């Protein structure tokens, strides 16, 4: 075992521990925090593999932004985030699937790469990475900007307060309700449609 291996195993254990705690903790907020630990641990895994830049990206984007977004997401919803939030209906099934996947994948990976000779890892330098992105992968890079733009605008569309129409706020107060597709609901919709009144009928006006 070299120093690399020791570091790799330690960081790997930290990551795996964080992941296990993420799915087992009863409190959603704690789960989110353990998730941040896992993400940070993955950054640590990248370091012994000589992927410095990737480790940095992992910390900046995942630990710095995605984990924060997760916690905002938890606090924005009306869902209870305390102890009572989690129900374990599918716990056994989930464990079986995850465990099975782990066994299968590790067997396959060891079978495929297990007998390869070990070598000193030398990762790409950041300027190699820059040349690769900006000389070879020009098109995916530019398409990515469109993808990110669409993601951002999509997020704004979904998060914005319902105004009925882009731009102006409607003055009518509207009650959000589930419109089930059962016959009664259809009849009610029809009634609202024919009488032409009621804020809720607007969707079909």
């Amino acid at each position, binding site marked *: 075992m070299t120093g690399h291996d020791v570091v790799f195993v330690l960081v790997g254990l930290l990551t795996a521990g964080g992941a296990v705690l993420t799915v087992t903790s009863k409190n959603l907020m704690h789960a989110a925090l353990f998730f941040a630990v896992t993400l940070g641990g993955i950054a640590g895994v990248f370091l012994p593999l000589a992927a410095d830049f990737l480790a940095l990206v992992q910390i900046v984007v995942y630990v710095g932004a995605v984990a924060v977004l997760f916690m905002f997401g938890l606090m924005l919803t009306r869902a209870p985030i305390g102890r009572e939030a989690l129900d374990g209906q599918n716990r056994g099934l989930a464990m079986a699937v995850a465990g099975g996947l782990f066994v*299968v994948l590790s067997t*396959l*990976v060891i*079978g*495929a*790469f297990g007998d390869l000779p070990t070598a000193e890892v030398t990762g790409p330098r950041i300027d190699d990475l820059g040349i690769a992105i900006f*000389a*070879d*992968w*020009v*098109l*995916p890079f530019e*398409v*990515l900007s*469109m*993808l990110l*733009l*669409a*993601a951002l*605008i*999509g*997020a*704004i*569309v*979904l998060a*914005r307060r*319902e105004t*009925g*129409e*882009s*731009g*102006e706020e409607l003055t009518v107060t*509207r009650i*959000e*309700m*589930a*419109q*089930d*597709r059962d016959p009664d609901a*259809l009849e009610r*919709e*029809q009634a609202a*449609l024919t009488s032409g009144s009621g804020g809720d009928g*607007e*969707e*079909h*006006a």
Partner: protein
Amino acid sequence: MQIDFIAILPEIILTVTALLVLAADLALRGDAKQFVNPLAGLGTVAAIIATVALWGSERVTFGTMYVVDDFAVLFKLLFLGTLLAILAISWRYIAEHRFFQGEYYFLLLTSFIGMLLMPSSRDLIMLFIALETVSVPAFVMVGMRKRDLYSSESALKFFLLGVLAAALMLFGMSMVYGFAGTTDLVGIAAAISGETASVPLLLGSVMLVLVGFGFKISAVPFHFWAPDTYSGAPMPVAAMLAVASKAAGFAGLVVVAFIAFEPVADVWGPMLGVLAVLTMTVGNLIALQQRDLIRLLAYSSVAQAGYILIPFGLARTGPGAAVVNAAAIEAVVFYLIAYAVMNVGAFAVAIAVERRTGLRSIADYAGLSGRSPLLAMGMTVFLLSLGGAPLTVGLWAKFAILEAIAVDITLFGIVLAGFLVVNSVIAFFYYLKVVRTVWMDEAPAGLPQLQPGFNLSAVVVVLMVGTLVLGVLPGLVTDFSSVISIVAAG
């Protein structure tokens, strides 16, 4: 580095159009906002012209990452034509339902940019980004009916399953890269041919990549999102998912399967063949029990995906494989064109009916023949064509698949053909059920006469004529042997 801008001109035009649409939506107020639709339409027409100009040429740019050949151009024309039809059927629907109009059209155009990139991509990373560019705007568009919890639920289902599929696919791609040391599709084919091909992990990774596309085309174990998502989404979005997004998935599948994974075709070929059988059978059997027209169309589109998967089941590697694979690709492309024509048409009629009445169960189509002869005619033609009736393009589409099977008859091919025939018969039950309701049943009292607007009528008429003309003269589009040029590349 030299970039061939002509080759990506259609994508550039759509990008500019999408940004203009967004700007126009910020600038316009109130009812004027609906005029972002013709703006998007203009951009689409310009993109179509730019694409047609590329026909017959073979352009390679961005290294070898991006290839515009006849195969790609045909797919691009299919996508842009679908986009034009969807814009036409969206106009009134989106304006009346007071969605975020500019954002809707922006997301729609962005999604189609991803589709245009798909058949030209020759690199795993490019393929993945194209696929995500198709999916991400679609996630949002499905959830745009925000006041309806049903729509939010369908968007959430679509999103969660879509992200899971994307993650699995990315995992598979990373492993394939680990084997091949390159993300270039042709390079992968060269790297994995020979003895590495039998490593279980490689085969598993190939499967994972195919799973990602299997989700996009809603093949059977990955189809659960489709019915809920189609019925919860705004209807033009459902049409887009059922046709364009599915065709994009198939385009990606063809590219990745027949170019990169061609050396292991003996493994994924039979697997996709089994998937095809499962997909069409399950789709058809569940469709039999549907009472909601959109859910019926959703399950029917699952079944159709099964038919389109059949040619993939024929794929093989080794000497003499090129002929079989070429015939398979030809069948896939022809079926997709036929499918787009008839399925967009069916959704257009459904939108016309739902827009006026808000009704969409099959029973609500009773007496449609009296309320709107045009829509009734259209629905009949489209459904019969989906079933594969004579004189419609649907028959020739199924015939193209049989033709691909006949190129080199094997036992597995005969089994697939048998399932195709049996399933076509089953499908006729539910298609004819709707047709009977439209023509035979009495219209319930109180339902208004339907007078679809100009756009919708035009779409229905054009697609109906297309279905019938291609049904009589399929040679108009079957003669594109040049699309198989991509086989030679692999």
